[in-house]
């Protein structure tokens, strides 16, 4: 009697969990699914009510986004290819350099004591506290004076400054998880600390480096505030370009959806590439086993 009652409860709990998961999945996947569908819809299909799940794919959005095919000479073509290249160059180099410097700084902060270390760590963190909007005008003036306005190099610098603090903090945490004995063993057995760092410690934090790179890449790729004010034509990144894309005939939703898909794909590729190391970074406790 008691068992059947509790199993009925179990059953109810399971259904409830399933329902919650379904809702959560729709919440997460729904927008992406909608974006993907809409990017292939014609203007007519896009606004039909109820929304069509089955329709004839229409590539006009993508043609217009890349300025090819039928939209090649159209006035409403966005032509995102250049800004896609800008985004990729700025995000990848910004991420790589921020992770590089963050790894070095994180190691030093994890292993060495120096005067003002606490202040330094706080300062590093504080670089992320300021709302970008507060300093945008100053950056604009400074970059204009230095000749960095509307250059990829300038945006890469911004990306490094914005991310190196975060990278330092995350990497310090991962280095803290590596026992000091690793370097001690190396040094006692006739190696240098540099050897220990490069050959023994770094491989142990591979996962952490991947996770840090993941964070920095997302920030760099999605960065909008600085890119929108510091670029005009040459160095515009994809988010800026898309936001500015409203054609002569009003907002081109198909175009924007297609551009949104283009915006998502590099992120997917990036995380696909680092997925193995990322998993290691998230299960770091296993590595730190004593």
């Amino acid at each position, binding site marked *: 009697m008691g068992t059947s009652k509790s199993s009925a409860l179990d059953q109810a709990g399971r259904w409830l969990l399933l329902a919650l998961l379904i809702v959560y999945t729709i919440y997460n996947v729904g927008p992406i699914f909608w974006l993907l569908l809409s990017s292939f819809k014609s203007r007519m299909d896009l606004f039909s009510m109820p929304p069509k799940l089955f329709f004839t794919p229409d590539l006009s959005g993508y043609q217009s986004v890349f300025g090819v095919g039928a939209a090649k000479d159209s006035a409403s073509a966005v032509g995102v290819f250049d800004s896609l290249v800008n985004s990729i160059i700025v995000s990848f180099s910004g991420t790589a350099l921020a992770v590089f410097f963050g790894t070095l700084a994180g190691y030093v902060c994890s292993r060495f004591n120096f005067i003002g270390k606490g202040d330094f760590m706080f300062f590093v963190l504080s670089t992320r506290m300021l709302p970008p909007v507060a300093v945008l005008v100053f950056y604009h003036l400074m970059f204009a004076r230095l000749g960095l306005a509307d250059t990829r190099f300038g945006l890469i610098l911004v990306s490094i400054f914005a991310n190196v603090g975060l990278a330092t903090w995350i990497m310090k945490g991962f280095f803290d998880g590596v*026992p000091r*004995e*690793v370097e*001690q*063993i*190396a*040094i*006692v*057995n*006739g*190696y*240098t600390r540099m050897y220990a760092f490069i*050959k*023994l410690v770094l*491989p*142990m934090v591979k996962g952490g480096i991947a996770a840090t790179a993941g964070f920095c890449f997302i920030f760099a790729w999605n960065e909008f505030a600085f890119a929108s004010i510091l670029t005009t034509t040459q160095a515009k990144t994809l988010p800026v370009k898309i936001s500015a894309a409203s054609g002569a005939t009003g907002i081109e939703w198909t175009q924007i959806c297609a551009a949104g898909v283009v915006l998502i794909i590099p992120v997917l590729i990036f995380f696909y590439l680092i997925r193995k190391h990322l998993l290691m970074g998230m299960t770091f406790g296993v*590595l730190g*086993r*004593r």
Partner: protein
Amino acid sequence: MSDAPMLELQGLKKSYRGKRALRGLDLTVNDNEILALLGPTGAGKSSTLLASAGLIELDGGTVRLGGDDVTRIDPASRDVAIVFEGFNLLPVLNVRDNIAFALRSPAFREAEDEIARRVGRTAELLRIAHLLDRDVGTLSGGERQRVAIARALVRRPRIFLLDEPLSALDLKLREGLRAELRQIHRQYRSTMLYATHDYHGAIAIADRIAIVDGGQIQQAGTIEEIFALPANLTVGKLVGSPSMAFLEAAIDDGSVVIKGAAQRLALSGFGRVAPSGGKLLLGVWPEDLEVGPAGAAGGSAGSIYAVDNRGFERAVQVETTAGSFRKVVPLEFPAEQGEACSFRVPDGAGFLFDEASGRRISHQDGRPA
């Protein structure tokens, strides 16, 4: 080889963020001996080993290896090997490469065929030959420590520094590996400094024992020497199992009176006694104390507070008016928890300590009773 001791530490001082870990520590380890550094957690054992290896920067003092002052010499040039308690194996290398690690370094490089020969032989000795190609993550605790010891051994360093190398292992493994370490020591005639908080482990493996506490060596010598003349209260508390019994006492008219007890001990049995103004403690090794049924002739009254069964014997905790102590008694000893009993300190079986300073004030002539 010179006649200088293998390792000679003088006046080592080290603070970590204002907390003093070593306060002028002096220690000598002779060639071919195993010296156990016995002390509680935080006594300064690890700091002593790290300082000997050159892995921490000292605030003061000198380190000599084989007579040479190496205080300012970098660790790679000291030719020492170290085994830690927990983390020893580099996860990015397999077992074979972990053992061969030192032999491929710029400082201790050997030819690859020599490395293969030595790694094979050492692995054989420690019975880990079947593990050589394994990933270190797949090893058990005992296997890990064997590999770590093999890595230290393969290089034949001037001194082995072992920092609680076995304390993470279970009792059986620990005893087995301890015996193997002694065996290896005999075979290779190596010098070892073995830090441990485990009294049994220390006396089982060591030729000499150094009791360390508060960042200083309290006493160093063979276990017989320490039993015969414990230097101070700390030594009494750290040596023995159970450790020394301490009873409140006073000197009265040529005899030692244990607080609240009937028995009086002749002061003449305590050798030369230094004058002391403060409270006194009578320290007696539990093995010397006699515990018997209540009312035994010449005994003082006490009561059994607790009884532990130890298989072939029992340990009793005895409460007295002068303090409590633990003692191992035969299984047939008639004692139940809460019962009255008696205890007696045999003639010549005790040491007087000044409670405030902890110093031993009896037997000032240096002769045990």
